């Protein structure tokens, strides 16, 4: 049954009701247009609720207030999110020239919203949240329509309100994922029921899968998985029905073929990336697991276990209520195995990056699908006991969550108060820049760097940024150079090559360098030099320090002769070894004499993990450096499992690495005394209960590296 026929049925039932009222003149009768309006409103109550929620969450008082007061600038997240907007204004699209987790569709949508409010940094700060909020509401509404077809409008309203206002379904990627799952279920369900393949439906499903990849790489993977899981579940359920099986397989093949055609078309439309858009997207997802794994707090662990256990239990119990003749998708036999498999799959995101923010959104599909099962039957119950699942949904919602602050009535009302005469001045203690009022610390850094860039480059000249503060260039409306949007995403050979090729292609004349410990931090505690040594070396061999704009923030300028004068020499100072790993026990690295003017330690090693690291996450590697003055330093490093890779360590204080950009090499090692490295060991630690212990580490080479610059010319 289609949505249209279902609505027709409801409409005809409404007409019958109207006829009944007209035939009974003794009763109160509404005018016909009011009856029609109230009947339509009743049928579309969930649509009306979705619109009300979208208006309520918009917070006009905030989004129309200019300039915007920001308590704190997040130099990581605001850097990529505002850079999207600036890049779109310069017609640079994600996936084509630049690779990132997010794709061009997300960039286009977020830019449209921010541009509508002025396109400035202030406009971004006051409106960035609108896209995920609106998209979350729309996707959840559509999912409710698809999954709860045949249910009363009140149930769909309850479902939408509970998911959006209490369970926080306000995230583009995962709300899109469970919409994709619902669409795939509906597609295969229709195929198995009607046994007729409509090419239009196959193309629509393929378009949805493509949209997933254009939103973000992981959304695309999950959408594709949703399609495969929904298809497989139907094949299993209809394995004894040959005609249904045939049409299911033809339907799957048609969608896959349409998707491949669209994938080729997408590649053709990306002149810089071509087919590497697809390989880069897959690379971003596959490298994430080892390069950006994050530990899980115990409190988060128990929330994850309890929420997933309850959700899976509901889906398992729901299987007893399966009904192949039900008009609701969430009662069909294929729904239950597919929903369990899809819920477990999306929890992969919670396993890899396990802070609550990520765990929370990864749990959304499981909660949404279990919630749909709890909406009960489509038929009228004989007594109240038939509505026990719905009551359980209410009790669970009331017990485990309060209302989202953005949608609490008091806050909604406050948000509707639009200032009559918006103030053009910043409140005392904050300072104006690009339509935003910032705290002094953030303002001084942003103003110093963005004004320098505006004064010393044209609007089309690119700027290199190290490590990730793209916001400096974005506020100055200068494009950031390179092939990967943020350096902490560079992991593995392919993405490193892409970024360096991008730097070569863009050939920026200026670079902004932020020193660890003074002006920036290492993501997840990994020093930026150790995370992306190739990028640091690229800059150090081609750029020289021009001036320091703020403590630890330096402008570098391209020196065309520097690379020819620059040399890197490696001195072998240790022997290769192969050791078994025991957790928290140090693996000593055989080390000879440390050369006095050596600058960095390079370990080439291979860490062996059992195959199941691919569904969990690797352990943390700490490189423990002992210096001749008896001081000790532990440096966190990332290394790809089961691959030979280099780890670069600067044994002293990372802030000193800024000195290496000086034109005079005598300055590089000046300043703080650099005690020689006397011992090195490796220590592996599990980050949490979900991380896998490596079995062996093979150290292939231990080198001390020194950098030289010929200054004779």
């Amino acid at each position: 049954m289609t949505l249209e026929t279902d609505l027709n049925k409801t409409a005809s039932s409404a007409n019958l009701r109207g006829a009944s009222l007209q035939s009974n003149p003794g009763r109160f009768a509404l005018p016909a247009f009011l009856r029609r309006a109230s009947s339509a409103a009743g049928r579309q109550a969930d649509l009306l609720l979705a619109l009300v929620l979208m208006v309520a969450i918009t917070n006009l008082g905030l989004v129309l207030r200019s300039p915007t007061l920001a308590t704190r600038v997040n130099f990581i997240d605001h850097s990529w999110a505002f850079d999207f907007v600036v890049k779109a204004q310069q017609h640079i699209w994600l996936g084509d020239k630049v690779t990132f987790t997010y794709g061009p569709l997300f960039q286009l949508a977020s830019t449209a919203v921010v541009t509508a409010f002025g396109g400035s940094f202030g406009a971004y700060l006051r409106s960035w949240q609108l896209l995920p909020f609106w998209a979350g509401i729309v996707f959840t509404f559509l999912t409710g329509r698809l999954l709860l077809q045949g249910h009363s409008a009140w149930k769909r309203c309850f479902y939408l309100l509970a998911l959006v206002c209490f369970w926080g379904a306000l995230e583009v990627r995962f709300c899109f994922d469970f919409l994709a799952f619902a669409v795939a279920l509906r597609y295969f369900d229709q195929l198995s029921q009607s046994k007729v393949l409509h090419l239009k439906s196959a193309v629509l499903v393929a378009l949805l899968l493509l949209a997933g990849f254009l939103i973000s790489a992981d959304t695309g993977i999950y959408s594709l998985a949703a399609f495969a899981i929904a298809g497989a579940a139907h094949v299993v359920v209809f394995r004894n029905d040959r005609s249904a099986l045939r049409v299911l397989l033809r339907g799957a093949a048609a969608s896959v073929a349409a998707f491949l055609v669209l994938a080729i078309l997408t590649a053709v439309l990306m002149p810089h990336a071509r087919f590497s858009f697809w390989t880069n997207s897959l690379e971003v997802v596959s490298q994430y697991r080892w390069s950006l794994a994050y530990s899980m707090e115990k409190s988060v662990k128990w929330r994850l276990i309890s929420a997933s256990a309850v959700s899976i239990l509901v889906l398992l119990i729901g299987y007893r209520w399966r009904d192949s003749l039900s008009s609701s998708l969430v009662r069909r036999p294929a729904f239950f195995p597919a929903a369990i498999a899809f819920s477990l799959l999306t929890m992969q995101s919670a396993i890899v990056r396990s802070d609550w923010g990520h765990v929370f959104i990864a749990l959304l599909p499981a909660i949404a699908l279990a919630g749909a099962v709890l909406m009960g039957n489509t038929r009228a119950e004989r007594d109240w006991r038939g509505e026990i699942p719905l009551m359980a949904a209410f009790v669970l919602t009331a017990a485990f969550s309060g209302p989202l602050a953005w949608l609490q009535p008091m806050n909604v009302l406050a948000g509707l108060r639009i200032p009559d005469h918006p103030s053009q001045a910043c409140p005392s203690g904050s300072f104006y820049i690009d339509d935003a009022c910032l705290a002094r610390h953030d303002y001084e850094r942003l103003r110093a760097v963005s004004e320098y860039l505006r004064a010393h480059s044209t609007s089309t000249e690119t700027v290199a940024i190290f490590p990730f503060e793209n916001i400096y260039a974005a506020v100055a409306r200068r494009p950031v150079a390179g092939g990967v949007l943020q350096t902490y995403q560079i992991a593995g050979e392919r993405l490193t090559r892409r970024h360096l090729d991008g730097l070569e292609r863009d050939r920026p004349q200026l670079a902004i360098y932020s020193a660890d410990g003074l002006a920036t931090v290492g993501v997840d505690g990994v020093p930026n030099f150790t995370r992306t040594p190739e990028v640091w070396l690229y800059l150090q061999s081609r750029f020289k320090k021009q001036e320091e704009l703020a403590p630890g923030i330096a402008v570098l300028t391209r020196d065309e002769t520097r690379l020819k004068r620059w040399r890197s020499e490696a001195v072998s100072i240790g022997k290769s070894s192969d050791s078994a790993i025991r957790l928290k026990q140090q693996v000593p690295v055989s080390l000879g004499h440390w050369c006095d003017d050596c600058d960095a330690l390079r370990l080439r090693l291979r860490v062996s993990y059992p195959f199941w690291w691919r569904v969990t996450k690797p352990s943390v590697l700490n490189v423990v450096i002992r210096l001749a003055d008896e001081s000790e330093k532990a440096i966190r490093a990332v290394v790809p499992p089961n691959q030979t890779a280099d780890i670069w360590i600067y044994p002293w204080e990372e802030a000193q690495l800024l000195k290496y950009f000086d034109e005079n090499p005598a300055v590089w090692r000046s300043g703080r005394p650099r005690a020689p490295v006397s011992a090195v060991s490796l220590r592996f630690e599990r980050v949490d209960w979900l991380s896998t212990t490596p079995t062996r580490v093979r150290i292939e080479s231990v080198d001390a590296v020194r950098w030289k610059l010929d200054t004779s010319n």
Partner: protein
Amino acid sequence: MDTGQDRTTRFRKQAVPAVLFFALVGLMFIDRPNWAVSPPARVWTRLEVPKDHNFAVSIESPLSAQRGGYLLVSGWAVAATPVVRVATIEVYVDGVLAGTTADFLARPDIAANFGRADAEMSGWQCVVAMGARSAGQHELLLNVIGSDGKRELAVTRSLTIVE
């Protein structure tokens, strides 16, 4: 024809969901922690502002810098009572004002340790230029100013400047 039984059936089908929907709307008016909010961090240490002091202050960064370079001094500061907040931190080196900050960062761990939600924005950091100060041991002082205007010399530490 719409029979009485049909109407009863429709009423049954819609009554419970409608009641529960409005009950959920009612819950929107009750302020309770939302599922999206991180669970509270485990409290390992219980902290409190010492008696006879207006503020509890800590420096967490190492106090060693290079001559002519910069030093990032960071830590947290909490006022004795929730009605007063820490407004400004001043950093003095050898009695000379070397840096000041009025910007504070979220430190949920400190708020949890104090068991006070008002201590959330207690993190601070300040970049201090070493300038021409000579190599050797120096004295670093922290002066805290509250929103009520009260000042307190909070911390004295030794600062090492190397060549």
